[in-house]
């Protein structure tokens, strides 16, 4: 059973290089971003998330919306296990993979083939699994002889194709994405979209942050609207999307 439960999750970022004195006695909230305050030690603290309660089960497709600095990325990081909440509890059951920056770990001086190995290891593949997938990745990327060239000789589109091909061979139970992945030219984009849809359909729980109404309504069953690190609205995709995008246009 795949599930993810966040109970009263709060995230405070300590900011050690800000002058805490000037902010000592004031708590201000900005138009964007979380709430700036100070903690018991007198350090400046930015509250990234406050009392988030979300429970996800098999088949849930969650969209996250909110303007810049509303806490979407922070929430994605909490969900992918990178940030341990400073308050509250999170429990995750299932293999969880985040495709936030697919170019992570790509070494420009190494060849395409070497990069497949590195990125694959970062994604948690064993040597044997990697050997099985190698041919599939190489074929999908359509890079041909360029696979033996250093990645720095690739065009931006080709680099994206490589990164995309490696990153999407995963089979996670929980998939976390920040915006829909784009890859390369028209022809490849079509193929990439197909593969991504396949991946999204196979995964048991999808969590995606996006600014695109179309994308969210099409792929999600539920949307959480974040503002200043708090849940402003939580409901079925259509309702929340209409409220958010109506309100913003």
């Amino acid at each position, binding site marked *: 059973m795949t599930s993810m439960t966040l109970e009263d999750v709060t995230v405070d*970022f*300590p900011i*050690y290089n800000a002058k805490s004195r000037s902010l000592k006695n004031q708590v201000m909230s900005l138009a964007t971003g979380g709430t700036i305050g100070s903690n018991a030690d007198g350090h400046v603290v930015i509250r990234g998330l406050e009392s988030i309660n979300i429970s996800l089960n098999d088949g849930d497709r969650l969209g996250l919306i909110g303007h810049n600095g509303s806490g979407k990325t922070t929430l994605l*990081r909490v969900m*992918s*296990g*990178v*940030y*341990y909440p*400073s308050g509250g*509890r*999170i*429990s*995750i*059951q*299932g*293999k*969880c*993979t*985040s495709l*936030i*920056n697919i170019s*992570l*770990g790509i*070494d420009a*001086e*190494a060849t395409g083939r*070497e990069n497949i*190995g*590195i990125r694959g*290891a*970062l*994604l*948690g593949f*064993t*040597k044997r699994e990697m050997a099985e997938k190698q041919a599939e990745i190489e074929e999908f990327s359509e890079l041909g002889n360029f696979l033996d060239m*250093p990645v720095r000789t690739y065009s931006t589109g080709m680099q994206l194709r490589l990164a995309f091909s490696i990153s999407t061979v995963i089979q996670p139970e929980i998939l976390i994405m920040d915006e829909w992945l784009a890859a390369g030219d028209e022809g490849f984009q079509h193929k990439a979209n197909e593969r991504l849809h396949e991946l999204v359909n196979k995964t048991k729980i999808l969590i995606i942050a996006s600014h695109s109404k179309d994308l969210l309504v099409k792929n999600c069953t539920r949307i959480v609207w974040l503002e200043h690190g708090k849940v402003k609205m939580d409901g079925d995709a259509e309702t929340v999307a209409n409220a958010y995008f109506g309100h913003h246009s």
Partner: protein
Amino acid sequence: MPMTIANSQKITAWEDVTAAVGNFRLAALLGWQDVAQRYRRSSVGAFWLTINMGVLIGALGLIFGTIFRSPMSEFLPFICVGLIMWGYYSQLINEGCLSFISNTETMLQLPLPFFTYILRTWWRNSIILFHNIVIFPVVLLIFGKFISFNSLLVIPAFFLVSLNMLWMMVILSVICTRYRDLTQIIQNIMQVGMYVTPIMWQPHQLPADKSILILDFNPFYHLISVIRDPLLGGTGTLLNWGVVVVMALAGWTAALLFLNRFRSRVTYWL
């Protein structure tokens, strides 16, 4: 294996370290990649470091050997092992401070065990050490010397020394991520440490009454001695070995407690 199954429990330091060791392949691959980068567009690659080290050993060996009036056949092998090992230790410490900081991007995206980044730094520098160590047999050959049976002691010694370096790196990487200035201070300490530790001078050149204070309280003296003495035909003193073993045990206990306490805060400090 990334630690993908999280739950309401924090990931303990023990789980972190065992997961990283269990997936040593990842750390080795990343560390190897760091070294491989030196070989790209350069046929000599990481051996440039070895060439630099060789020149340093030759120059310092001649100067200090002459100043101290030590016979070259004895002094040059001594300073050779000393400088190579000191280079290894100080690189591990200095780069250990940056182990998390230099992997910020990865750490903010993948929930990999943190110890993987430490192992990466260790593996990278160990590969470079194995490049540098080729200088030693060359120096021995020049003086028509051969290594003795005692040299086999370097195998357990390297294991113990690595255990010690790794716990130091665990603690330093956490503190230096929180207090960025500390990296500079540590670099300074390591720079001074090279002169305080018997590398360019020999322990017996110290007056006997001062040697306890200067040598025995210096952990790096023991860490150097358990490697250097066997390679030069000795064994290292019982105190050397005792300190290295006790320090490994105590250090790892402290490091695990420390990592356990602060592990969940580290990504917030990046």
